[in-house]
């Protein structure tokens, strides 16, 4: 990428980019203002049209800017003291790739959800939030400075909060979106601290000046080593929250409470990819040891998510964990330096994962119908009640198969190109290193096999064999429901992208993919070595028996290898107890400290103040008491007025003039004596 950076006034590109970004926002505003009565389903149509146009613009933009000079345009946003803060657009390969990707998937999901949400009474609100999300995501992709990026980063989190909690009357949905937002918030804090560190040293937010694209980040000038690492970790923390990496991943499975179309768009393709996008954007910040941390976290997440996905019964939960594990792949790829293949995988993954979710949506939709018709109390998302759906939903079945193959990384699919790219570069990366480093590629390998296993388990459980409902209701009979056109078309549209031709002509060699070439670092040299051949072969050869194994296990149950019990199963089944750990340790402890501090505040500080008030009163009482009793006692004693003791005057003002006179005399004598002493 030897393009030199020049500031030309590419007015046409800028207008295209602005149009692409602002169209969904226009949709959001107009939906908001449009009175209810115009067209009862008008909003859906309107925002779909807008997203369509924005797709067209981004494709045109893609054509104009891909592999050419990045365009940067900015305008003064505001000035603090002497520092000027600019806001603008940065269109380089990365952003230009992401634009069509996001709008393409968004279009598919829009069409899909017109049908999917058809009978939902809050239809208008759904499309408002959806177009708001698209606007935020697109803006995030093109923004040119860290502050603006952070702003849209949080807005994306906010949009996902709205969409997860869309059916806000459902208690679980509301819990989920609160959790999601707070988890993202933790990530945002990391992101903010990262920005602060960079700002502290360079006094600017602009990505250009910071990382002076496209040459790599050499200006780590006065940013001392330790601060660089801390900044790197903070940015990575931001990415982990958004892309649901290991410590902060528990919100994604719960986010499945939202409508499936939402999960398809947000929790499969776009938002979760934002984390990886951030890593790509600020890639120069990471120095080698931070990259190592990223790799470790990435691989571990991938492996962990894959193991959990093995035993889940909820259809969407499995897909959620598979997303986490695929994201783990991408993050690991970023860590080992395979920048280009990680983004390649991001693009391909977006398509087939969205496709998987959409098909899952159709299945759940179908199960919902059955449930209502026969008013069974089964959970429509639980795969244990499904089975034999291939006859009922043929097209979904085909698209699902394609997507699954892409996910496994079966040759001829786009997944193969991107996943194997990562695998090969992982092995190259680990080649010279000590034994520990070798673990990384091995783990990645194991994870890809596990992926193959759980996705095939899903397929066989859902599509093959007889419907489990039969055991419950013998008379149950599927009757083929006409698959709604609005479902099938987007799915087919997406499945096209899952196959290899779109990305590269030669199905086997990932280097030839145009997308891969777009991101290659200038000094990338073709390293022909044995890995190129062994790894892909090994992976595919082993996936075949794994798939067969899953087939054998679940369809004709002749292999009892995978007991439904045992420690491992339980560990994996309840998400490695991480969620419970978070729930009853961290969440509870924070609230507990809150309560304790409040109690402290109430009794100690407030108490202290009341204490001071009381002390004030007590002092006055003591001074009063002192006046009354000490002197009064002496008087009686001297005057032998025994019977007076009975009538102790309440106040010093005993009313007896003589006592006043006496106290006066005593006072004068005391002064007199005092005078003598000095």
């Amino acid at each position, binding site marked *: 990428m030897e393009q030199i950076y020049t500031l030309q006034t590419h007015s046409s590109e800028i207008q295209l980019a602005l149009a692409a970004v602002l169209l969904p926002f226009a949709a959001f505003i107009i939906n908001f203002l449009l009175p209810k009565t115009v067209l009862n389903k008008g909003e859906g149509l309107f925002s779909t049209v807008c997203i369509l146009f924005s797709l067209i613009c981004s494709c045109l933009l893609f054509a104009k800017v891909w592999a050419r000079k990045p365009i940067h345009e900015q305008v*003064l*946003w*505001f*000035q*603090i*003291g*002497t*520092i000027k803060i600019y806001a603008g657009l940065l269109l380089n390969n990365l952003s230009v790739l992401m634009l069509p990707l996001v709008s393409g998937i968004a279009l598919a999901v829009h069409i899909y959800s017109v049908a999917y949400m058809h009978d939902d009474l809050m239809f208008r609100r759904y499309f408002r939030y959806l177009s708001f999300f698209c606007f935020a995501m697109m803006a995030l992709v093109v923004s040119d400075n860290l*502050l603006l990026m*952070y*702003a*849209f980063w*949080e*807005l994306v989190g*906010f949009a996902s909060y709205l969409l997860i*909690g869309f059916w*806000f*009357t*459902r*208690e679980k949905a*509301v*819990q989920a*979106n*609160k959790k999601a*937002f*707070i988890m993202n*918030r*933790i990530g945002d*804090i990391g992101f*903010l*601290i990262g*920005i*602060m*560190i960079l*700002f*502290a*040293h360079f*006094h600017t937010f602009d990505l250009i000046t910071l990382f002076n694209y496209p040459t790599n980040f050499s200006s780590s000038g006065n940013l001392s080593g330790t601060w660089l690492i801390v900044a790197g970790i903070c940015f990575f923390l931001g990415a982990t929250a958004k892309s649901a990496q290991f410590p902060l991943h528990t919100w994604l499975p719960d986010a499945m409470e939202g409508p499936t179309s939402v999960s398809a768009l947000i929790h499969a393709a776009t938002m979760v990819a934002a984390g990886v996008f951030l890593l790509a954007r600020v890639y120069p910040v990471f120095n080698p040891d931070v990259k190592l941390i990223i790799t470790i976290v990435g691989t571990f997440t991938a492996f962990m998510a894959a193991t959990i996905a093995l035993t889940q019964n909820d259809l969407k939960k499995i897909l959620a964990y598979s997303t986490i594990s695929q994201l783990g792949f991408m993050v690991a790829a970023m860590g080992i330096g395979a920048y280009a293949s990680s983004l390649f995988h991001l693009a391909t993954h977006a398509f087939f994962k969205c496709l998987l979710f959409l098909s899952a949506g159709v299945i759940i939709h179908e199960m919902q119908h059955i449930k209502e018709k026969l008013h069974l109390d089964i959970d429509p998302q639980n795969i244990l009640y499904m089975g034999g759906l291939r006859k009922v939903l043929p097209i979904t079945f085909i698209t699902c198969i394609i997507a699954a193959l892409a996910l496994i990384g079966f040759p001829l699919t786009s997944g193969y190109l991107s996943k194997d790219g990562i695998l090969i570069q992982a092995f190259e990366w680990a080649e010279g290193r000590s034994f520990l480093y070798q673990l990384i590629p091995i783990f990645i390998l194991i994870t890809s096999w596990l992926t193959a296993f759980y996705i095939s388990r899903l397929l066989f459980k859902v599509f093959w064999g007889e419907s489990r409902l039969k055991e419950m209701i013998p008379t149950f009979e599927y009757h083929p429901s006409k698959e709604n056109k609005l479902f099938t078309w987007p799915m087919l549209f997406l499945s096209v992208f899952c196959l290899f031709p779109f990305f590269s002509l030669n199905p086997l060699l990932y280097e030839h993919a145009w997308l891969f070439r777009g991101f290659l670092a200038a000094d990338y040299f073709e390293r022909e070595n044995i890995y190129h051949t062994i790894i892909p072969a090994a992976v595919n050869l082993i996936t075949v028996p794994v798939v067969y194994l899953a087939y054998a296990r679940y369809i004709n149950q002749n292999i009892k290898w995978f007991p439904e019990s045992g420690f491992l199963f339980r560990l994996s089944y309840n998400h490695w107890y991480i969620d419970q750990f978070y729930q009853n340790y961290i969440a509870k402890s*924070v*609230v507990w*400290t*809150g*309560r*304790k*501090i*409040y*109690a402290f*505040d109430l009794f100690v*500080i*407030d108490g202290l*103040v009341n204490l001071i*008030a009381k002390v004030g009163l007590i002092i006055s009482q003591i001074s009063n008491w002192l006046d009354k009793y000490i002197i009064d006692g002496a008087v009686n004693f001297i005057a032998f007025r025994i019977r007076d003791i009975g009538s102790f005057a309440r106040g010093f003002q005993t009313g007896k003039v003589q006592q006043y006179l006496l106290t006066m005399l005593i006072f004068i004598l005391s002064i007199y004596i005092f005078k003598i002493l000095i």
Partner: protein
Amino acid sequence: MDHLLTLLIFTPLLFGIVLLLLPVSLRNSFKYLALAATIVQLVLSGWLYFHFQTGASFSGINHAEQYQFAEKLSWISLSLGSMGKMQIDYFVGVDGLSIGLLFMSSLVMVVAVLASWEIKTNLKGFFALFLLLDMAVIGVFCALDFFLFYIFYELMLLPLYFLIGMWGGVRREYAAIKFFLYTLFGSVFMLLVMIGLYFSVTDPATGNHTFNIIHMMNPANYVQGSIFSTAHQTLFGFPARSLAFVVLFIAFAIKVPVVPLHTWLPDAHVEAPTAVSIILAGVLLKVGGYGILRVCFSIFPEVATAGAFWLGLLGVISILYGALNALAQTDLKRLIAYSSVSHMGFVLLGIASQTTEGISGAVMQMLSHGFLSAMLFFLVGIIYVRVHDRYIYNFRGLAKLMPAFTVFVMIAFFASLGLPGFSAFIAEAFSLIGAFTSASVNGLLPAWMAVCGSIGILLSAAYFLWTLQRMFFGETRLSGGENWRAALTDLNFREKSALIPLALMALIMGILPSLVFDKINDSVLALVHLFR
């Protein structure tokens, strides 16, 4: 043109007098009169804000001639026998710091009047005191003569004591007298320091002592050997100047409020009627912050630099302490009160960093918190006026019942937890950035303070979302049953007309912070220059 500020300060007094003369029979006309007063004030301060020139020559922290709309006329000239003349003059002016606060407080006043529709008893007394408070508040922001500043500062206490005391909630006496004693305790010692300063500063023009804050700023005016002259006199063993700084800081810290001295805030807010708690949160907390900037920092800059670490520490403590406390609250208004403590902690942190970003972030936070806390308290008031209950656990699923109300609540909650696109995000981000950069720029605050501050943002997200989820989402189950369900009607026109401007202001300042920053940049630069 030049008497605008005096007009701005005394319009409420005028309207108040007119109101007092009206017979009690015109009861319901009082609130419209008060509304008219505050709207006139809003127009005036808007005009002032618009005509406020910016540019290097208008920074105006320690240059008297750079203050805009300044007016100076001699008010009291007591001749004290041997001691020469005690010269106090009515010196009023506006610079970068106070112009924003002026506009914000007049807008908050309009909203407060709109919120006081619910007051039913003794309207005449209420609105008279309200307008008196309004005058005092505006006066504090414009006063540049320490004596005038002190008079307006004390004048605020009296109406508030009665407003909380007579129209407040159940424990109103306790809250009112606690509030009064707290602030008075701070201000009595401030009086002593003020007189001490008076005796150590001479006005270059007239030669005799002066209360003029600007003269107090440059050391040239200090009489040799006077208590607070820079030749570090000692008082009880401590250097006099730092003792004065601490005393002044305590007086304003009570107002801000900074943690150890904050216990009056929750009581005062919970017991005060909605209109009063809007002013209390929206404007009075800013007086503390503004006071620290105008009085403590400008008159004793070198002491401020020396003590910056402790100020920063106090700021961080109040952020975390306020947020953690808010987590444990069950009464909605008390929760918002503690959240104000936490948000004002950012202001202190930003100010303590003494960097341009930090201080402008702090001033921005004061403005944005003004709008947002006014909005929050107004919203709580709306519930309270309908069902007279603020206990969070009694409400569930209000979103279904009051959709428009929930939209505004969500805007307010998300704005105050710092969602980008709203002003609080810019303010808190830049206060933290200021605090962070201060480690490298002037080495005052260590970096970990900004990190702890950012945890505050996280906690604020936690308690706001918890409340949102607890009260608004889920199935509607009200502890008050059917009659509550009937009572909880959605927003009427008046309430909407009060909330919309606040939401809009927060949004506009979030998207176009240049509106605020252009005005305050020069003054902040001058202030930072003062510290070097």
